[in-house]
C-alpha cells in the first residue's frame, strides 16, 4: 500500500476495541476481584442528618459468626487520613474537617460510624445490624436558603454555614463594564428581567456501584477502586495517610460510568485502606445502590438569582448572577469549585458588555455535592438560555432572533469575552441554520400557532438552547490563579515493542468513553501503524505513573495532545536510526504512512522494522540510546469552546400536565471528530442526562434530612421507553488550541439539553401566563402551572418513598 492509499484513521467510525470484553462478560469490575484471604467490609451508617454520637457498642457484632473485627473512628489515629478539598475557592473558605469515619458527631444521614470486617459479605452485613450506636439528635440545616441565613448551623463549632463567597466582576477585572450601571440604565429606558431559577439536587447514578479492594500484601499497597481518578487518589492517600507515593499503587480496572460521580476521594476508600493496612489482609467493600445514592456525592443544588439588563430592542447590556450553592455536609474534592467552573460561562455565546457573578457556597446536613456531568456549565447554560427566552418574550420576537442579535458573529473570532476568555473558533450561524432546517422549525412554529388558536388540549412548545462550554481542563496557570490545588496537564508515553507493536500509556483514566479506540486511531495515523497494532494502557498508577485522570471533557483535548507529542518524539528518535540503517542522510529522509524513505529512491524502512533494530541494538549509530520510547506532558494554554444549537419540540397534555417529546435536533461544533460513532454515543447519552434533569430526576429529602429518593424506585432514571431517537449532526470549526483541532464532547449534550427541554415546556404553556416551571417538570407541576398561571410547586412537602410502605409478599 502506498502512502496515498492509506485511509486516515482520524474521522473513521471504528468499532470499539473495548467492546469485545464488555459484550462477552469478560470484564474486570472491581467487585469481580477476589484475592486470597480477602475479607469483606460492611458499613454502619447514621440514620440521622445531624447528631452527636454518644456511644457505639460493637460487642454483639464482634461476637457474630466469622467477624474478624469491628472498628470505629476512635480505633484509628492519623492513619485513617482525611477526605480533602483540593480547591479552596477563597483564602478564608470555611472548611469543616472531614474524617472518613467521625467518632463524635455525624453531619448527614448515611455517614459512616463503624465498619465491620468479616469473612463474607453476608456475615459482615449481618453483624453490622448488631452494632448499637446511640445518638443525640441535633437540629439539622436542610433548606439551602435557610442554611445560608445561618438559622441552624450544620457544624456548630464553625459558627456559620457560609463556606466561601466568590466573585467575578467584569469592571473590577477590567474585562467589561459595570453591571450595576447597566441595570440602572435599563430600569429607566430599557428592559430588566429578574428571575430566580432552581437547580435541583441530582445524583450521578453511574450504573456500576462503587467498589474498592485494598491489598496490603507485598511491598506496595494496592488499591483497586471504581474511580475516575486513580492518580489523584494515590496523591491524596499519600498526602493524608503518611504512606509515601512510591508505596501506593492505585488501579482503576474496568469502571462502569462516572459522570463526575467517581471524581472523588471517598470515606469508603479511605476506610478500606486503613482497615486493610491494620489487618494486613486484602479487604473488599462494594456499596449497594441505596448506599451509593445516599453517600456518593450529589450534584447541582443551587438557587440562581439573575438580573438581565437590555436595551428595548433586545441588545443585552449587562448580566448579574447571584448563586447560592449547597455543598452538603462537607467540602468535597472540587466542592465549591463547581460553581466557579460555571462562572465564566453565564455570558455563553453572547457579547455582553458588563457581567457580575457571585456565589455563596453553603454547608448543610445533606450528602456532599461535587462535580456531576458538566459541573458548573449546565447551571450557567440553563440560566442564560432560559432568561434569553424571557427576553425574547419581552421584546416580542422569536427566541432565535434575540440570540442572533446578541451572539458573537463567526467573523469576530477569536473573540475575548466579558469574562476575559478567548474563544478561538466557532460559527453559531452555521450550526443554527443547519439545526433549523433539520428540525423543520418554521413548520413546527406554524403547528404551534394552529394548536394555540384551536385551543387544542395538546399544546406544542419549541425549546432552544444555543450553548457553549469550556472544555479541556485545564491550563495549569489558570487553575493556579483560581487556587486549585493541582495542575491541568496530561501525560502520555508511546512505546515501540520489539515486534513493532505500539503501546500507548495515558494518564487519562477512561470509564466508558472509548479512549482505547480513539487514542489508537490518533496513534495509528501519527505513526502510520495499523489501528490493531496499537494498545492503549491506562488506569493503573504503576503502568501509567503520571496523569491527572478523566473529567471535564479533557481526555482528548489535553490527553490526546500529549499522545500526539509523544508519538512525534518517537518519529524524531527513529529518524537518525533510519538514516543510519539506510545509509542515507537524515535530511534526505521523509516519514509518511509509517515509513522512512530516502527521497528520490525506492529505499525505505518501516517504523516496526526500526523498532526491531532498536531492540537488537546491533547496529545503531554511535551515541544513540537503544530506545524509541518517548514521553510527553501537555499543558494547554487555553480552554476549548465547543458550541451547538439544540432544538426540542414538546407536546404538553394540558389536561394532565403529561409531556411527550416529539423531536430533538442538535447540531454541535466540537471541532475535529476522531471517531463519529463514539461522538454520537457521547451526544446521545449526554442529551438524556440533561433531559432527565429537566423532566425526571431529583434527590428529595424529607423534613428530618432523610433522602426520600434513596433507591431507583424513587430516584427516577429514564428508560428506553421514556426517550426518543435523536437527530444529531455537526458543523466543524477546528479548535486552534491543540494540534488535532478537537474541542471535547463528553459533557456537551448534558449542558445543552436541559434548557432546551424546559424552554420547550414553558413555550407550550406560556399562553396560560406561565413563565417558569421548576425542574424536574413533573406532570403535576406542569398541570399546576397551567392552573395557576405561575410556577409549578415543589414535590418535597409530600415526600414519601414507595418502598417504605410495603412488607412484601
Amino acid at each position, binding site marked *: 500500500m502506498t502512502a496515498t492509499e492509506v485511509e486516515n484513521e482520524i474521522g473513521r467510525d471504528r*468499532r*470499539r476495541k*473495548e*467492546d*469485545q*470484553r*464488555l*459484550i*462477552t*462478560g*469478560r*470484564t474486570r*469490575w472491581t*467487585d*469481580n476481584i477476589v484475592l486470597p484471604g480477602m475479607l469483606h467490609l460492611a458499613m454502619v451508617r447514621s440514620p440521622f442528618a445531624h447528631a452527636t454520637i454518644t456511644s457505639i457498642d460493637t460487642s454483639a457484632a464482634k461476637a457474630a459468626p466469622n467477624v474478624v473485627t469491628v472498628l470505629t473512628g476512635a480505633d484509628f489515629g492519623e492513619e485513617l487520613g482525611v477526605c480533602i478539598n483540593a480547591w479552596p475557592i477563597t483564602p478564608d473558605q470555611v472548611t469543616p474537617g472531614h474524617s472518613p469515619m467521625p467518632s463524635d458527631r455525624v453531619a448527614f444521614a448515611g455517614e459512616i460510624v463503624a465498619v465491620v470486617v468479616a469473612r463474607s459479605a*453476608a456475615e459482615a452485613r449481618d453483624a453490622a445490624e448488631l452494632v448499637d450506636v446511640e445518638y443525640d439528635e441535633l437540629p439539622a440545616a436542610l433548606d439551602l436558603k435557610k442554611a445560608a441565613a445561618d438559622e441552624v448551623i450544620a457544624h456548630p463549632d464553625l459558627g456559620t454555614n457560609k463556606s466561601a463567597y466568590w466573585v467575578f466582576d467584569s469592571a473590577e477585572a477590567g474585562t467589561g463594564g459595570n453591571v450595576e450601571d447597566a441595570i440602572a440604565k435599563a430600569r429607566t429606558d430599557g428592559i430588566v428581567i429578574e428571575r430566580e431559577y432552581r437547580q435541583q439536587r441530582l445524583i450521578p*447514578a*453511574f*450504573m*456500576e*456501584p462503587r467498589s474498592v479492594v485494598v491489598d496490603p500484601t507485598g511491598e506496595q499497597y494496592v488499591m483497586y477502586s471504581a474511580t475516575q481518578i486513580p492518580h489523584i487518589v494515590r496523591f491524596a492517600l499519600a498526602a493524608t495517610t503518611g504512606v509515601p507515593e512510591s508505596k501506593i499503587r492505585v488501579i482503576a480496572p*474496568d*469502571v*462502569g*460510568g462516572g*459522570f463526575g460521580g467517581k471524581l472523588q476521594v471517598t470515606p469508603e476508600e479511605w476506610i478500606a485502606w486503613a482497615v486493610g493496612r491494620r489487618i494486613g489482609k486484602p479487604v473488599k467493600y462494594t456499596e*449497594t*445502590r*441505596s448506599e451509593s445514592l445516599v453517600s456518593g456525592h450529589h450534584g447541582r443544588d443551587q438557587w440562581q438569582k439573575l438580573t438581565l439588563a437590555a436595551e428595548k430592542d433586545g441588545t443585552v447590556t449587562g448580566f448579574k448572577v447571584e448563586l447560592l450553592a449547597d455543598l452538603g455536609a462537607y467540602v468535597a474534592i472540587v466542592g465549591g469549585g463547581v460553581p466557579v467552573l460555571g462562572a465564566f460561562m453565564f455570558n455563553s455565546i453572547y457579547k455582553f458588555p458588563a457581567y457580575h457573578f457571585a456565589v455563596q457556597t453553603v454547608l448543610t446536613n445533606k450528602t456532599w455535592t461535587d462535580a456531576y456531568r458538566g459541573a458548573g456549565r449546565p447551571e450557567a447554560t440553563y440560566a442564560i438560555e432560559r432568561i434569553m427566552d424571557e427576553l425574547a418574550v419581552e421584546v416580542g420576537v422569536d427566541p432565535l432572533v434575540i440570540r442572533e442579535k446578541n451572539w458573537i458573529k463567526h467573523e469576530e473570532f477569536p473573540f475575548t469575552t466579558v469574562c476575559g476568555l478567548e474563544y478561538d473558533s466557532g460559527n453559531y450561524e452555521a450550526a443554527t441554520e443547519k439545526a433549523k432546517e433539520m428540525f423543520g422549525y418554521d413548520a413546527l412554529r406554524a403547528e404551534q400557532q394552529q394548536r394555540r388558536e384551536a385551543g387544542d388540549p395538546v399544546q406544542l412548545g419549541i425549546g432552544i438552547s444555543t450553548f457553549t462550554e469550556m472544555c479541556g481542563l485545564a491550563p495549569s496557570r489558570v487553575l493556579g490563579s483560581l487556587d486549585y490545588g493541582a495542575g491541568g496537564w496530561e501525560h502520555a508515553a508511546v512505546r515501540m515493542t520489539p515486534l513493532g507493536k505500539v503501546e500507548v500509556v495515558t494518564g487519562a483514566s477512561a*470509564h*466508558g*468513553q*472509548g479512549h482505547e479506540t480513539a487514542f489508537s486511531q490518533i496513534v495509528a495515523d501519527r505513526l502510520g501503524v495499523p489501528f490493531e497494532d496499537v494498545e492503549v494502557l491506562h488506569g493503573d498508577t504503576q503502568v501509567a505513573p503520571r496523569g491527572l485522570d478523566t473529567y471535564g471533557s479533557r481526555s482528548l483535548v489535553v490527553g490526546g495532545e500529549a499522545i500526539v507529542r509523544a508519538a512525534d518524539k518517537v518519529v524524531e528518535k527513529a529518524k537518525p536510526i533510519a538514516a543510519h540503517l539506510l545509509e542515507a542522510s537524515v535530511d534526505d529522509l521523509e516519514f509518511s504512512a509509517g515509513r522512512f524513505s530516502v527521497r528520490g529512491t525506492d529505499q525505505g524502512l518501516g517504523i516496526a522494522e526500526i523498532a526491531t533494530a532498536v531492540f537488537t541494538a546491533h547496529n545503531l549509530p554511535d551515541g544513540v540510546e537503544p530506545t524509541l520510547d518517548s514521553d510527553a506532558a501537555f499543558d494547554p494554554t487555553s480552554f476549548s469552546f465547543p458550541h451547538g444549537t439544540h432544538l426540542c419540540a414538546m407536546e404538553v397534555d394540558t389536561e394532565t400536565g403529561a409531556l411527550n417529546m416529539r423531536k430533538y435536533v442538535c447540531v454541535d461544533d466540537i471541532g475535529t471528530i476522531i471517531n463519529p*460513532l*463514539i461522538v*454520537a*454515543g*457521547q451526544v*446521545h*447519552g*449526554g*442529551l*438524556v*442526562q440533561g433531559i432527565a434533569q429537566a423532566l425526571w430526576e431529583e434527590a428529595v429529602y424529607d423534613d428530618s434530612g432523610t433522602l426520600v429518593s434513596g*433507591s*431507583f*424506585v424513587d430516584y427516577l*432514571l429514564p*428508560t*428506553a*421507553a421514556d*426517550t426518543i*431517537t*435523536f437527530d444529531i449532526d455537526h458543523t466543524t470549526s477546528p479548535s486552534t488550541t491543540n494540534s488535532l483541532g478537537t474541542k471535547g464532547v463528553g459533557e456537551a*449534550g448534558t449542558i445543552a439539553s436541559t434548557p432546551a427541554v424546559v424552554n420547550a415546556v414553558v413555550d407550550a404553556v406560556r399562553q396560560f401566563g406561565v413563565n417558569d416551571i421548576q425542574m424536574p417538570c413533573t406532570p403535576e407541576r406542569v398541570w399546576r402551572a397551567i392552573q395557576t398561571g405561575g410556577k409549578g410547586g415543589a414535590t418535597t412537602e409530600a415526600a414519601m418513598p414507595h*418502598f417504605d410502605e410495603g412488607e412484601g409478599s
Partner: protein
Amino acid sequence: MTRITLTVDGAQVSDDVEPRLLLVQYLRERLGKTGTVIGCDTSNCGACTVHLNGTSVKSCNVLAVQADGSEVTTVEGLAQDGQLHPVQEAFRECHGLQCGYCTPGMIMQSIDLLNTNPNPSEAEIREGLEGNLCRCTGYHNIVRAVQHAAGQGAPS
C-alpha cells in the same frame, strides 16, 4: 444449606447454598460468572438479567435455591465456538454500549425480546427494554442494535 443442581451456560453445577443466596450472587461468587453484574437493590436496573429456562429474569430477584433443577444462560454462555451471538455483534456494530456495565443485562433482555417478537417496532423495542437502565448511551444506539439484530437495516 440446601443442595442445588442446575445447568449454567451448558455445564452442570452442584453446590450447597444458603437459602438467602441470590441467583446473581451464586453466579458471581460461587461460579465466577462475573459477566453478570449487580446494579441496584430494588430490581429496577436489569443489569443482572439472565435467562432462566429460556426466558429473561432478573437474577437478583431469584433465590439460588429457586433455580434448582433449572437451566441458566448468562452473557458468558452466548458465544458459541468463538462466534458471537448476533445480538452481541449488533451491540458492537451499533455502538450500543459505552461503560458496558448494563450491557450483559441489555443483551440478555434484547435476546428475550427478539425471541418473542422477531420483528419489533421501535416502540416495541423501547417498551421491551423498560426493565433495563443504561446511564451512558441514552438508549439511542441500543435501540439501533436491536433493530440491527432483527435485520432491520444498517445502523445510523
